[in-house]
């Protein structure tokens, strides 16, 4: 059985963009591609958890970062993983200039729409990586 694609959001807590990254990750792993993806918390990688690193080393990874600090991509690469696709919410913002996310604990409507747009982009990548359509 093919291993699931790991979706790793940035764990951003200080900006709306981090919340968009997190929400998009949930949309992908719980709704759009739930049978082909799994969400991995970045905090586990910060500690270098052995089990997590082992899983990371053999998996395909998509990172979703809120800001240019790119914590998720950097931490994955720094702990033995290979980032197949590193996405940034800021890039998605540029493609959807009318969407203005705000709120951190609770995203506004625009933030949810942006997360959905991002999740759809991730879904396409997952389908390319795993071949064929994901479950809806």
């Amino acid at each position: 059985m093919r291993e699931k694609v790991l979706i790793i959001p940035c764990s951003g807590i200080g900006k709306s963009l981090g919340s968009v990254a997190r929400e998009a990750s949930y949309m992908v792993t719980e709704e759009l591609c739930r049978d082909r993806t799994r969400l991995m918390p970045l905090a586990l990688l910060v500690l270098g958890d052995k089990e997590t690193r082992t899983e990371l080393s053999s998996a395909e990874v998509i990172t979703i970062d809120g800001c240019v600090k790119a914590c998720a991509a950097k931490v994955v690469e720094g702990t033995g993983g290979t980032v197949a696709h590193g996405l940034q919410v800021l890039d998605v913002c540029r493609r959807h200039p009318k969407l203005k996310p705000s709120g951190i604990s609770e995203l506004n409507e625009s933030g949810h729409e942006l997360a959905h747009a991002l999740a759809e982009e991730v879904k396409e990548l997952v389908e390319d990586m795993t071949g064929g359509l994901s479950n809806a």
Partner: protein
Amino acid sequence: MPELPTKKVGLIACSGEEIPEGTVTRLAVRKVLESLRPLHTVTICLPLFLAGGEGDRAFARFHPTIAIDGCEKRCAARGTEMFSGKPAVSIVVSDSVSAESAGLGTARRLSEKGMHVVGDVADQIARHVDHLLDLKWDRRSGGPVDGSTPQEESKPRQAACSCGSGIPSQVLRVAGREVTLIALPLIFAQFREAGKLPSDSTKAQLIEAVRIYNLIPDDEESAYARAVTEEYAAFCRGGN
């Protein structure tokens, strides 16, 4: 005059996206930052200790920190200690709610009970903040008692993370090895703008200011003082 960042309590949530307790940590920290103690707290994303620079890693050496973890893995507390500095306080959500965790909701959407736990954890964090900063809180007015609060900010702030505003640091050679001194560029700028020229009296004041933010071994104080003073003299000459 450039000002050294005000001493605040740093909050570091594990933000574990896989479990509801992780969401509790994140929302509780946001509640403290936004409404309970906005003037006295800052946060930083845990992964920035690995992905960021020295200024980011200096976070817990500069601020007394409270680590808030969702589970017994204690990623926030252990990660903070490993890369930055030992947290003053460590809170583990699952310790207090393990029997009820089924009722917290999901990691993505907390239940009403989950949101109650967020409130409880946020209150717990706020109490620790008060203790760490020696604040006395007036329950009637909902504000700090006069004279017990550190430098208040004049304008309301939007609670945000500290990334991109890492504490400036500078590397000096002391007793034959390189050491990183937190906040040194700000201290130099502050001294120069106060008109303090390099001298023996300034040397004592400099080392006192540096000691606030850095650990200086007693047996190396004179070596540190010499290195800092020489660097300050160069800073003044260079007009940085």
